[in-house]
C-alpha cells in the first residue's frame, strides 16, 4: 500500500536566475512499512526531499500525497497535526531542547495532545526505557553523550506512535560504533513494528542497513533499488 507519493515534485529555493532547484521533478513512491535510505553527495537535495516527505515544507510544484491526500490542500495547522500524530523526526544535531531533561524532551512531543501530566510523565519514562535510557531520564542534554542524546531524540520521535520515522543523517554526529548502535536500534524498531523509515545519509555503509536505497544527484533521483550488501560496501571503501 502506498503511504507517500511524490508526483513531479520540484523545490526551488530563491527566485528567477538565482533560484536553486534543490529537488527537480522527482517521482517517488514509498509503501507502508518500507525502510529506505536516500543517499547522494552533499548538496544533492537529500534534506530537501526529507522536508517535503515530512510535511516540513511545501513543494514549489508537483504533488506530495500522504495516503492519497495532497499536502498542498492541508492548512498549516493540519500539517502540524499530521507531524504530531503520524510522523516522527530524528536530526543530525539531535535537536533536543537544552533546558529540558531527557524525560521533558520526550514529553514535549506529547504536549500538543493535552494528556494528563501523570500519563505524559509515565509514557515518557516508558519510551526512555525502550531506548535504554531509563536511568538518565532526569539528565539535561548537556549531561548526555551524543549517542544518548540521539536515543532521547528517537524516544521523542516515537512518542506519538508515528507511522513514519524520518531521519536526516542520524549518525552524522556520532563515532562509528555509536552510529552502528543507533542504526541497530532503528533496524530493531523497524523489524518489531510496522514503522516506515526514511533515512537520509551520505554514508553507503549506513545506508546498507536499509533494504531499499534511493540515490540522488543534483536534485534528481539517479537510482532506486535494493541496497548493496554490507560486504560489497566494505570492499568499496577499502
Amino acid at each position, binding site marked *: 500500500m502506498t503511504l507517500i507519493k511524490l508526483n513531479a515534485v520540484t523545490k526551488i529555493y530563491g527566485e528567477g536566475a538565482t533560484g536553486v532547484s534543490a529537488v527537480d521533478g522527482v517521482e517517488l513512491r514509498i509503501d507502508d512499512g518500507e525502510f529506505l535510505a536516500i543517499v547522494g553527495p552533499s548538496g544533492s537535495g537529500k534534506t530537501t526531499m526529507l522536508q517535503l516527505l515530512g510535511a516540513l515544507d511545501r513543494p514549489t510544484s508537483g504533488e506530495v500525497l500522504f495516503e492519497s491526500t495532497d499536502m498542498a490542500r492541508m492548512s498549516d495547522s493540519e500539517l502540524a497535526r499530521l*507531524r504530531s*500524530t503520524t510522523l516522527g523526526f530524528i*536530526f543530525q544535531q539531535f*535537536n533536543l531542547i537544552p533546558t*529540558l*531533561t531527557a524525560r521533558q524532551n520526550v*514529553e514535549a512531543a506529547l504536549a*500538543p495532545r493535552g494528556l494528563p501530566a501523570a500519563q505524559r510523565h509515565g509514557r515518557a519514562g516508558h519510551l526512555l526505557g525502550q531506548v535504554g535510557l531509563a536511568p538518565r531520564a532526569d539528565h539535561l542534554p548537556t549531561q548526555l553523550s551524543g549517542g544518548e542524546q540521539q536515543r532521547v531524540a528517537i524516544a521523542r520521535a516515537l512518542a506519538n506512535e508515528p507511522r513514519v520515522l524520518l531521519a536526516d543523517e542520524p549518525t552524522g554526529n556520532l563515532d562509528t560504533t555509536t552510529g552502528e548502535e543507533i542504526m541497530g536500534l532503528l533496524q530493531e524498531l523497524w523489524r518489531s513494528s510496522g514503522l516506515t523509515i526514511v533515512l537520509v545519509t551520505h554514508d553507503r555503509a549506513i545506508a546498507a542497513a536499509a533494504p531499499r536505497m534511493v540515490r540522488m544527484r543534483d536534485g534528481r533521483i539517479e537510482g532506486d533499488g535494493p541496497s548493496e550488501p554490507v560486504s560489497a560496501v566494505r570492499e568499496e571503501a577499502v
Partner: protein
Amino acid sequence: MFYISYIASELRRRKGRTLLTALGLAVGVGLVVAVSALSAGLDDAQDEVLEPLTGVGTDISVTRPIDAKGGFESLSKRERRQLQDENGDARIGLTNQGDPGDKFTTTSFLATTQLSFPASEVDEVASLDGVKSVAAGLTLNATTVSGTVPEDGGQDQPGVPSGGGGPPDNIDFKSTSVSGVDQAQKSLGAISAAQVSKGNWFSQGDSREAIVNTSYANRQGIEVGDTVMVKGKRLKVVGLATSPLGGQASDIYMKLDQLQQLADRKDRVNTLYVRADSADAVGAVSREIEQTFASSEVTDAQDLADRVGGSLQDAKDLAGKLGTALTIVALLAAFLIASLLTLSSVTKRTRELGTLKAIGWPQRKVVRQVTGEALAQGALGGVLGAAIGVGAAALITAVGPELKATVAEATQASGPGGGPPPGGGFGQGAVQAGSELIKLTAPVDAPLLLLAIGLALLGGLVAGSVGGLRAARLRPADALRHID
C-alpha cells in the same frame, strides 16, 4: 500543563537572560514606585503645611476688598456713608487732646485693606447650599498715639506714620492688629481653640479677655494672666495662640462684640469664615457666595496652596515635570530592553522553536511559549521592581531630607490714601509669613505596588508579543537548516 514546566525550566536554566530582562523591567517600574512615592510624600508635606490652615475648619473666607468688583456704586447709600465714616477721616487732631503740654493717649481703629459689611451677611451666607457653618470676624488696626500736646497745636497729623517728615519726637505711634472673635465658635474664626497653645479659650460671659499671638507676646513680654490695653480698656490675657504658616495672624484676639463696641462698629464685621459640608462642595460654595454677596472676595485653601513656595514647591514642580518624564522614559527604555532581549532570545532559539514546530506543535503553542516566558519574566521584574521601589522609598524616608516651605508676605494692592499694613491672608490681618522645615517621606501603598507589578507585566506582554511575532514567522524546516 507541560508549557508551565517548560517556562519554569527556561527561566531557571537561562538565569542570565531571565535576570537581565527582569532587572530591566524592575529598574523601570522601581523608578515608577520611587517617583510616585516621592510625589505622594511631597503632597503629604504640602498638606502638612496647609493642614493647620484648612484643619482649623475654615474652608473659605469672605472679605470685601477696597478694590472690589462692582465698586462702591453697587452699594446702598447708607452702606457707603458707613464705610466713609469708618475709613475716610482717620485723622487725629492733636489740639483736641487737651492744652499744650498735656499728656495724652488716643486710639483709633482702622480697617486693613478690607472693608466692613453688616453682620447680617452671616445669615445670608449660612443659608446657602453646601454651607455647614459660618463665623463672623472683625479685624482692625488699633493705632494708639500718645505724647504731649505740642505748643503750636492745631495742625493735624496723619493717622498712620507713613512717609513725609514723620511725627514730632514727643509723639509716639503704636499700631496693633486686633481681631474680634465670636467666642461661641470655638473651631471657626480668626483663631480657633485648637490654636491656643497656652492658657485657655475665651469664657462665654462678657468679662474682658484677650488671647495674644505667641510672637507678639514674645516681643512684648506678655504672659497668660497679664493684661493688655486696647483703647484704654484692660483685657485679661487668658491664652496664647500660634498662627499657622500662611495663616492669618493678629496681635490680639478679643471677643467680637467688645471690639465692635470699642471701635464704634456695632453689627459690622469684615471677614466671614465659612465651613463647607464637604471638601468637594468648596468650589460650588465659593461661586455661590461670589454671586450672592455683592463686592465680596472669596479665598479658599487652593489659593493658599498657591502661595506656598520654597524648596518644597521646587521639589514638587520637579517631581511633577521631571519625575513624570523620567518615569515615562525609564518605562519605555525598560519595555524596549525587554523586547530586544526577548527578540534576541527567539533568534538564538530558532532551531529549538523550529524543532517544536517540526515535532507537531501548532503555531499558537509556540507563540504562547515565548509570550509566557516573557510574561513570567515580567512578573519577576514586577516583584523585583516593587522591592526596588520600596527600598528606594524606605531610603528616602530614612534619610528624611528636609524641605523648606515658604509663605511670602501678600503683595496686595494697598488701599487709596495708602498705608494700611499688608493683609490678604486667609481672613484678615497680616499673613503669617516665613518658612517651615518639613521632613520628606516617601509613602508606598498597596495600589502603587500593584501598579508596579501591572506595569512590569505589561512590559512582559509587550516583549512577549514582539518575541511571539518573530516566533510565529519561524518555519518548521528551520529545525533542519538553522546553524548555531
